[in-house]
Every structure is written in structure tokens, then in C-alpha cells.
């Protein structure tokens, strides 16, 4: 009886220590923007980007040995840079190329913005890397397509904060491009960021999700994984609250303590959120978990027909809504 009482007391203590959910906020305007996103445009964009990668000139791989997950000599980006520039321009933006680095490490990032109405100096960043191995349908034409469609749907609204879109280059070179971009100060005005990293593959088959130490995400790969650190944890909480109302897609969000940069969370630093985290920029990384789910990851078979259009559409609507929420919809 005494042992039972002790356990009950400990259980009560645990519940008492559980922080409450974040206070509710008005998410309906942001959700309406998410629902307005036209998902039918996504797969044609992925297909066009993938075709561009296949016909593109490869980035020099001098000095890089091919590894199992990194076929260094199959990397391309120039056609994607051109495609994204054109797509932004068609959406009414004024895109520009920001060049960083030198020599073989020169990166060409595509940058475009919607200027904020009342707090333009505060920037909400939506980023997706546009370099890819082989056709790169999932990694990362899926993310680029979501970014472009978000830019298009946001065009008909006004926001308090500036929304900046960046197609990062040289992510597949160990985040070299975004590291240069951040190091040169191009993200110092960012107050919230989402990095889209491989967001188009899902499966509801048993054991379709591989385990990763430290992440209790189950064995079915039917969810969007969202990674946060201490700085971006409030962004993840607001996203979950929004998605709970809207039901855009199934989300499992993980928050690492501190900067999120330590051995146990090394897998989280494999995308462009890494340099942003280390700079202290509140950033979420959204992913279908890449090689922990997609058997085509970094292979010649990473082609559009392997993607899950329904899943991609849900991710795109959640993205547009989240960006609208963080940027604050203006009347």
C-alpha cells in the first residue's frame, strides 16, 4: 500500500511538472491561406525540376569521392536555378541570385521576398535546397515545389513581416551553400525559418519507417517529421496547434535541447537548418525523414512517379499556413 502511494505521488509529481500546451491563437486566417494553395500544381513542378536535373551539366566533383549515400559526381543545380528564377518571376516576385563562396565552392542561391507591411525588418524565411543528385524528385524537388507554390498563394495576401524565399545551393556538399549564406549575414534578420528537406514520400505500409536512435516515431512512414531546437520550439508548438485545427497532414515534431548540435542529434544537422541553428536563427526542418523512409534516397530511382502526391499536397498546405502564421496575416 505504501509503495502504491509512493508511485501515485510520483505520478502526480510528473503530471505537475508537465508544461501546459501553448496558449491558443487565432489560426483561422493562416489556415484559410493554406487551404487556398493549389496542390494540382505541385507534381508538374516536381516533374519539370526532375527533368531539368537529368539533362543538366553536373557540378564538378573534383576532390569528392563517391560515398554510398553521396554520389558526388551526380550533383546538378543550374537548371533548377533557372527554373526557380522563372517561377518566382511568374508569381510576381523580383528574384535575384546571391552568390557566396569562391572557386569550386561557389554557390548560387535564388532569393525572393514579399515585403512586410508593418514590420518589414523582421523576416520569415522559407527555404529549400535546389541542388540534387540524379533526378532528385524527393530530395529536393519536392521541397522546391512546395516553396514555389507557397510563394504563389501568399502573393494575394499581405503580412506584417517580410517573407523571404531562398533556394539554397550546395546543400548536398555538407550544407556548404547555406553555411556560406548564413556566415555572410544574409539570415541575420530572420526571426522564424522553415527548411523544407525532402518532403514528398510517404507510406502507410507496416515497417515503412526505419528507426533512428532518439526519435520515437513508430514504424509507419505516413507523417511529416518536424525538427526543432530550443530556439525554434515555440514555432513547432504553434505549427502543431495550427495543424490540430486544420488537419493538413500528420505531423510528429521533435525538439532537441539547446542548439540541437550534439552527437545524439547529428542526423538533424544534415540539412540547411544546421547552419541556421548554429547561428541562433529559430528554424524548423521539415522532412519525410529521407533515407529513414525513402528507399530511393540519393539514387537514380528518386523519380517523380515514386512520390506520394497526396502527402506532398498536405505538406504544402501546412507550409503555406505556417508561413502565414509566422508572418502574421494583415487585414
Amino acid at each position: 500500500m505504501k509503495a502504491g502511494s509512493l508511485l501515485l505521488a510520483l505520478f502526480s509529481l510528473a503530471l505537475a511538472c508537465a508544461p501546459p500546451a501553448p496558449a491558443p491563437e487565432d489560426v483561422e486566417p493562416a489556415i484559410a491561406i493554406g487551404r487556398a494553395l493549389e496542390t494540382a500544381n505541385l507534381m508538374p513542378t516536381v516533374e519539370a525540376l526532375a527533368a531539368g536535373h537529368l539533362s543538366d551539366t553536373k557540378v564538378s566533383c573534383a576532390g569528392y569521392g563517391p560515398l554510398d549515400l553521396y554520389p558526388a559526381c551526380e550533383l546538378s543545380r543550374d537548371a533548377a536555378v533557372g527554373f526557380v528564377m522563372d517561377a518566382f518571376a511568374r508569381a510576381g516576385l523580383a528574384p535575384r541570385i546571391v552568390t557566396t563562396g569562391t572557386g569550386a565552392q561557389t554557390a548560387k542561391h535564388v532569393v525572393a521576398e514579399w515585403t512586410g507591411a508593418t514590420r518589414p525588418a523582421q523576416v520569415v524565411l522559407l527555404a529549400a535546397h535546389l541542388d540534387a543528385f540524379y533526378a532528385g524528385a524527393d530530395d529536393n524537388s519536392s521541397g522546391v515545389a512546395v516553396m514555389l507554390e507557397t510563394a504563389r498563394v501568399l502573393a494575394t495576401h499581405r503580412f506584417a513581416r517580410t517573407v523571404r524565399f531562398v533556394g539554397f545551393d550546395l546543400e548536398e556538399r555538407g550544407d556548404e551553400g547555406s553555411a556560406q549564406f548564413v556566415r555572410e549575414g544574409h539570415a541575420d534578420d530572420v526571426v522564424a525559418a522553415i527548411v523544407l528537406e525532402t518532403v514528398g514520400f510517404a507510406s502507410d505500409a507496416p515497417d515503412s519507417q526505419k528507426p533512428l536512435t532518439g526519435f520515437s516515431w513508430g514504424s509507419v512512414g505516413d507523417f511529416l517529421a518536424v525538427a526543432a531546437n530550443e530556439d525554434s520550439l515555440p514555432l513547432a508548438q504553434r505549427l502543431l496547434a495550427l495543424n490540430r485545427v486544420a488537419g493538413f497532414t500528420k505531423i510528429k515534431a521533435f525538439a532537441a535541447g539547446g542548439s540541437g548540435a550534439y552527437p545524439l542529434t547529428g542526423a538533424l544537422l544534415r540539412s540547411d537548418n544546421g547552419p541556421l541553428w548554429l547561428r541562433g536563427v529559430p528554424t524548423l526542418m521539415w522532412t519525410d525523414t529521407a533515407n529513414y523512409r525513402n528507399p530511393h534516397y540519393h539514387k537514380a530511382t528518386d523519380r517523380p512517379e515514386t512520390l506520394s502526391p497526396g502527402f506532398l499536397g498536405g505538406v504544402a498546405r501546412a507550409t503555406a499556413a505556417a508561413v502565414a502564421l509566422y508572418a502574421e496575416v494583415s487585414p
Partner: protein
Amino acid sequence: MNAVWSLVVVLATAAPRPAEDLVVTPLLQQGAVVFLSDRVTAGGLGGGFGVELALRQHYLLQVDATWLWGADNAWTTRAAAGYQRRGFWSPALWGTFNILWGNRIERLADDGARAAAPSFALGVRAPVRFAVASGFVSALESGAALAPTGGVWLELTLMAAGARW
């Protein structure tokens, strides 16, 4: 680590232990802890310190704190009560109350709520111990514990040593 081995050398050359009613021994230790639940993963490698009370050479009480690296900064605090065999070779069995503080990887609830903090668990551990007059050396202390709210605590203390002077 060097401090622990220094203690080992001191203890190995020490005289047989006296039969005092109450012996208070400061200690150093190093090892690994991992806490796993469906909401939280935490732990790491590290070291710490504590104090042990031995009553009539059989009954043990210990409190200690350990700092961990691997998932950023985390630390454990532990209170334990145990019973040991009397003599130079003095294996022990402990009941433990463990608390893990600091950074971890957590899965947020669907409404954005965070997991409870700190994580704590009740369990047992069983070290191989050697005791002499001036202290003790304990190796390969393996322990396991369960959290009342779900979760498993696993620990391995590679070496712990206490010395009196």
C-alpha cells in the same frame, strides 16, 4: 578518470576495514545513462560525485550527481539505499530513485505540449564492490529503472571509488 584510478591505487594498498557503526565516504564515479520513453530520449556519458553512508558495514545510503554529455548538457541526481556483503569483496544491491535534468530530445504532443520534466525513475542496480578501511572501489555497476509515467532508465557506471582520510 585519473582521479578515479588514483583512488583505486590508494585503496588497493590500504589496510583492512575497521568495524565502525557509521562510515561516511565521498565518492567519484563515471559512466553512462540513457532514458528512453515514447516522448523523451536523454542521457549521455559523463562523471560526477556523491557521498555514501555505510551503517554497520551492511546498510548503504548514497546520494550523487552526474553530469552527462552526448545530448547537450544533462545531469542526473540519484538517491539510493542498498545492502552489501561484509568483507573485502562486498557486492551490493541497491534500490534507486533517479532524476534526469537538462536537455533531451522530446516529441511534442499533438497540441504542442511538451513532455514532463525532469524525467525520473525507480529501479535497482548491482555493483561489484571491493571495500577496505579507507574506502571502496566499485566497477561495472549496471542499473535499470522504470518511470511511473512510462520509460526505461538504463545505466552503467564503469567505475566508482570512494575514499576516506
